[in-house]
């Protein structure tokens, strides 16, 4: 397996896996503690609309997916603030309509159709250097935001009403968390695909939550655990010629099972 490290696409895959894992660890923690998992799922699937439109208009896929995902996030943020009691209905709607738009635009695109499967299950072996820059920049942005906004993010996540009474701009931080989630979802789609992205954002976080007594520890542990799962999944996928995204998720799920078993005993 060592000789594989000589190939550029394998190196890219490893770097992408690490960058995305760390981003997913941090943002996944925020998604879980804010109970936005269903919401992140909605954004992930809605972003397929952006992928379809990018294909149709011959734009960069990352750009299309990012813009669409952020737009869905803003729409959801707006709806959450005003129609909180119907939010799950709206998320379901955005989830389905986004995907439908994507499918229709791919249908309308003349000639060669991009492989739908690569977006559903990821295409980590086809990561370009510009993809890596995008991932790196996003991770940098996430780290900066969390570092400097930690107190406010913690306050908003733990008790948003109280945060508001302390003069913290709750809407701003809530929307910021959603936008960063949307962008993280977009880069994670490259690694594990949009169907499996939720597992990547939640399984490591679930393990980390049990092991940490503060949010920042949870973020760091999630990032490390996620990176380990990604590397193990990639190795497995290389050794047995399996789809990488699915391998990563199965490694994660199996590890979670073992963890829960040990945690119960210990």
């Amino acid at each position, binding site marked *: 397996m060592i000789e594989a490290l000589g190939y550029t696409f394998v190196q890219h895959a490893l770097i992408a896996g690490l960058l995305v894992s760390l981003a997913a660890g941090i943002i996944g923690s925020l998604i879980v*503690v804010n109970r936005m998992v269903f919401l992140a799922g909605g954004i992930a699937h809605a972003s397929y609309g952006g992928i379809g439109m990018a294909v149709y208009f011959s734009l960069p896929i990352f750009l299309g997916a990012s813009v669409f995902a952020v737009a869905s996030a803003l729409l959801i943020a707006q709806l959450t603030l005003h129609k909180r009691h119907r939010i799950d209905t709206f998320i379901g709607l955005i989830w389905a309509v986004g995907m439908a738009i994507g499918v229709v635009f791919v249908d309308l695109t003349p000639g060669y159709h991009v492989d739908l499967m690569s977006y559903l299950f990821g295409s980590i072996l086809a990561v370009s250097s510009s993809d890596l820059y995008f991932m790196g920049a996003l991770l940098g942005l996430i780290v900066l935001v969390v*570092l*400097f906004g*930690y*107190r406010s993010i*913690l*306050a908003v*996540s*733990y*008790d948003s*009403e*109280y*945060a*508001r*009474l*302390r*003069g913290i701009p709750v809407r701003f931080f809530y929307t910021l968390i959603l936008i960063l989630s949307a962008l993280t979802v977009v880069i994670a789609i490259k690694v594990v695909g949009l169907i499996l992205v939720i597992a990547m954002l939640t399984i490591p976080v679930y393990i980390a*939550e049990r092991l*940490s*007594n*503060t*949010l920042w*520890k*949870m973020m760091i542990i999630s990032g490390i655990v996620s990176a380990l799962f990604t590397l193990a999944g990639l190795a497995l996928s290389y050794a047995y010629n399996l789809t990488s995204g699915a391998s990563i998720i199965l490694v994660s799920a199996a590890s979670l099972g073992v963890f829960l078993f040990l945690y119960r005993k210990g």
Partner: protein
Amino acid sequence: MDAVIEINDLSFAYEKDIILENINLIVKPLDFLAIIGPNGGGKSTLLRLMLGLLKPMQGSIRILGGSPYEHLSEIGYVPQNTNVNTDFPIKVLEVVLMGHIGGKRPLFGYGKEEIACAMGALAQVGMAAYAHQRIGDLSGGQRQRVMIARALCAHPKILMLDEPTASIDVKGQKEIYELLKRLNETMTVIVVSHDISVILEYANKAAHVNKRLAFHDISNKKETFHTHGTDDHFCEIELLQMLGSEHCDTCNNDTQTRREEP
């Protein structure tokens, strides 16, 4: 200043349901006000209006002579339901540190003075030893004390609590009220509660809220509720009914007539 809180002709409705109507209330410095009344009667809504979390439909609320939003740091708030979100990975100290407001903050992390202040607040409620425990590992009563410490962090002039003793055992409830009594020596305390014992033992003012508000000065009325023999001790329902009426007999300094009723 004469009043810390002054509410004039306040009305509030969610959509079409009128929750509060023509509320007038004056809270004086160092009052211990109990807001009581039936469930759905508007107690919590009134508190949320005083906090500035809701806007009045009609009428005005002045806190320390200004709008609630101008005096955020002078109001300490302890919300209802401290038993939610117990999975959240957060230490007791971090929860208390949330009580700080604006001001000088380090670029990231917490300042030394802020931590010292938060530890002081924890010591005030007797929870300093738990500072580094995860909040979810505490009991309901302990968590409630931590929430009070969080409210004390900003050195408020008014402390507002929403059902502070719901879902706490009897011993824990007594401890919370003793703590509030102590805090009341230096700040105004407002408690929303369906727990009538708070009026009997600790409050000096009572506001019964059921769409409308009936106000009672009970500072000199402890004996009315309490110190007579067990025979003519008011039961809670009777007491609630009495406080619910606009003019209760006890407020006319005529405790005798009330007692002689069948």
